[in-house]
């Protein structure tokens, strides 16, 4: 690279002293999020059971039990995954970026810099309203991969975060 074009090629950077995103204490999300996930899965459980009963009444016992059995197994796995996942949700806001960690089987940590955020929105589903939760969505231009969706936030906190991020975005662009 042409050294004139790169603003930081002259100073040596000691990479080891750069802030490490892995060493961060993360904020947990609300416990209610698990309730929401379980309720959602519960609805599916009811649907699958209803399907099973319907198949039974139609005397399609073999096919019915095969399909609903495998679906139930899958839902049970989902419940297990949701329970294991719950304590692993965490987010943190640093001076210049936002970090969101989630996932049990595959743990994912996404870091999005404030100067790359396009916009922020808050979304509340019916379950969210019952359980007093909010979902904060952070959009970047990097497509669905780098969009961050933090669910299970307290509505006031979500609102505050949104305000804070909006402020940061505005500052970063000057």
């Amino acid at each position: 690279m042409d050294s004139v074009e790169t603003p930081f090629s002259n100073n040596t950077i000691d990479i080891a002293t750069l802030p490490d995103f892995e060493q961060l204490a993360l904020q947990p999300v609300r416990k209610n999020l698990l309730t929401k996930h379980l309720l959602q899965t519960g609805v599916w459980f009811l649907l699958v059971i209803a399907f099973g009963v319907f198949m039974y009444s139609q005397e399609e016992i073999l096919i019915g039990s095969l399909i609903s059995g495998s679906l139930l197994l899958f839902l049970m796995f989902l419940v297990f995954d949701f329970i294991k996942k719950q304590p692993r949700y965490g987010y943190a806001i640093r001076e210049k970026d936002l970090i969101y960690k989630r996932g049990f089987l595959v743990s994912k940590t996404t870091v999005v810099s404030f100067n790359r955020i396009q916009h922020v929105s808050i979304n509340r589903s019916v379950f969210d309203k019952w359980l007093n939760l909010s979902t904060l969505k952070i959009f970047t231009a990097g497509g669905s991969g780098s969009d961050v969706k933090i669910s299970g936030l307290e509505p006031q906190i979500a609102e505050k975060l949104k305000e804070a991020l909006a402020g940061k975005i505005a500052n970063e662009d000057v």
Partner: protein
Amino acid sequence: MSKAFSIPQRQSAIGILLIFTSTLYKFVRGFWAALAYFVFKRPDGEALLYISLGVFVLFILIAIYSYVDYRKFLFHIDYEAEEFILKKGVFNSDFVSIPFDKIQQVNFKRGILQRIAGVYSLVIDTAGSKQKEVEIKAVNTEEANQLADILNRLKDGKLTDAETSEGVIDPELTTESAPEEKWTYRLSLATLIKTGLSSNFFRGFGLIFVFISTIFNELNQFFKEETSQWESQFTESVGGIATSSIFLISTFVILLLVLSIFITTAEVFIKYFNLKLTQTKSSLDLQMGLRTNTRVSLKPIRVQILKIITNPIQRRLNLYKAGLWVASSEESNNKNVIQVPGLEKETVQHIKSFLYQSAETESGTTFKPHWVELSRRLIIGAIPVVITAVLQYFTHFIEFGWWVLVTSIYVLLYAIFQFRIYNSMYLRIGEVFITKSYAGWDETIEIVEIYKLQGITVKQPLWYKSRNLVHIVFHNAAGDITFRAVDKAILEKINYCLYSIERTNKAWM
């Protein structure tokens, strides 16, 4: 004037009708199978009554939904917070706010219904996926013009260099008088044909397959009786072939190969005929195409990822293909890459030096994937072998000898291919660039500037924990670059990348 649109307001009342039709359309699209069933079945008496009653109720429900949707859909401009704000949602409540300076474009769209109703659909684009654009379905002409005008002025007024959205990086360049040509590259007819002949034929194969199956389908639908007769003849003869004559099969394969080479060459020819690449002071201008003449003018800042692709044959012929990936929303997938084939190495260097002010590939730390990545790829490849083995054992759909022959050819080719990919794959993180390189048949080098990244995701499956391996995904406005199963030592470099993204003030687009 400054107070225009500052109070939350609804779209034009005709919007109810538009929401109604689009919801209805979604329903019809979702349940077209059921609909077709009813139409063909021609239900009578009681069933017909119930069905029409159901449809009637559905209509009413959709109408109510449309009305509520319309009532809840409120937009306004918050001049103080410098945001465009939209509230919507019937069951959920969505609250979208777009800061002025994040607005990429304000577009008008008009469908047939909107044309009849005399309204416009106003689309506010912010680069990225589908959820990021806001569409107001029905705005009357006057208001649409006004709103677009205000939003355009607000977004430009906010930007210090108003041209950024158009992609001019260097303000000095725009003051320069006429665009001066630096170099021009013309793709000669001979090179075009060479490129076509040495291109990847898999696409050609795919096209033939789609073509044949479409025709077969059409025939099936229109000449059902005739085909059944013809089909029985066909299966008879095919069955004969499969058991007796290898000669016919190989002829068939060769014929297919020749046909696919022909089709691929023709495709390349039509797409890239008369290709002319010109570099002016501030942009790269591309013109090509036999049937539809494509003209693109690219500013370096708009290019998000540069891919340089060749293959062993093309490399010997000094032929390279450059893929210039630009940012775009997720739906318009095919539009966001500009492919320029048939380039000489020298021209590729020209492009590189134009985009990055330097043709040299910088040094940096190189990372290779762990060997578990190779075993993962091999295991995935073994799945079809196992499945066909089980099928063969239970159903004897193919003779055992044939199965062994086909499987061993497949396993051999697949293993060689995967070893080659694994051996050639590397990721290099330098000071300014991230380079990913891999070679199957095609040899690809992907280059992205670190400051053009949008975010980074580090993934770690549970079973990689003990080996200390992670997957890295670099998010870019033109797509993700993923590198799998790399040692955790890379995280130091990731911290560096984040640092580079966060300290730069350069516009990434």
